């Protein structure tokens, strides 16, 4: 048997939280969450207690989007959006890596661009796995 010491992590070069923080800062996003397709939180910024709820919600939206895609026989989903009256947007990007499907959800202020910044974050998420 091997026993090996490990200091509780946290020293990884790039954590998911760091990636989301960088993305929020660069894109001017107020909030972001990375969740599994089952709705479990992987990371969120800011780290609010309702990140579990946010993860579950984006996963539920993803399931609805996926069902819609199946019904309409559309190609694979890249993103889906909820837009509010005041032009705030919840952008959800799907990330497929091997057999894993993850969802990146971001709150984007009115008029703010998001594609390039979220693409960059997705690439970094892929690299962190």
């Amino acid at each position, binding site marked *: 048997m091997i026993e*090996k010491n490990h200091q*509780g992590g946290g020293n990884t070069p790039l954590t998911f939280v760091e990636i989301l923080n960088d993305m929020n800062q660069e894109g001017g996003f107020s909030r972001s969450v990375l969740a599994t397709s089952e709705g479990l939180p992987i990371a969120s910024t800011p780290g609010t207690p309702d990140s579990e709820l946010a993860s579950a919600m984006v996963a539920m939206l993803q399931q609805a989007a996926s069902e819609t895609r199946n019904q309409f026989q559309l190609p694979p989903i890249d993103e889906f959006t909820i837009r509010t009256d005041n032009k705030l947007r919840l952008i959800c990007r799907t990330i497929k890596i091997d057999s894993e499907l993850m969802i990146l959800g971001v709150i984007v202020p009115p008029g703010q661009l998001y594609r390039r910044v979220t693409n960059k974050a997705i690439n970094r998420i892929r690299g962190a796995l």
Partner: protein
Amino acid sequence: MSKGLHIPEELLDKIEYILDHLAEKARTDCILLADISGQLISVQGFMEEGTPAIVAALAAGDVAAMAELSSRIGESDPHGSFFHEGETKSIYLHNISGSFILIVIFRTETPIGLVRLFAKRAVEQLVPLTKEFEQVMGPPKTYNPDEFSKGITQELEDTFPTN
């Protein structure tokens, strides 16, 4: 720390590499890998409280009970995972092909999705190693659903007699 299992170093190195990666990525406190009977194979990290050998043995009991429970609700595959959420520490258990038990102990601040994501990846890498393990150690010999079922039924009848 010898626990009576003599596993080839090469196999242990592969296991250690996988557990190291899981610990680093999922920011866990402690990861244990045991055989299905609850004998420790490898420990990664620290346990602030408790003894790894006892935790592994208890986990083996939990995995056997959960396999029986899932079969009673009509689930045919007993090799699943389950998760206990505590106030400060949580435990994620995964029955790997009926040969290994992966036990991940982590703080409740660590998102469960993070643990599950990387644990699933670790399990995918550990599955092929169960074959190697069985070649060396022999086939798993603990969990027998019929025996377990008879035993638990008897225990339940003894505890709550029907007549």
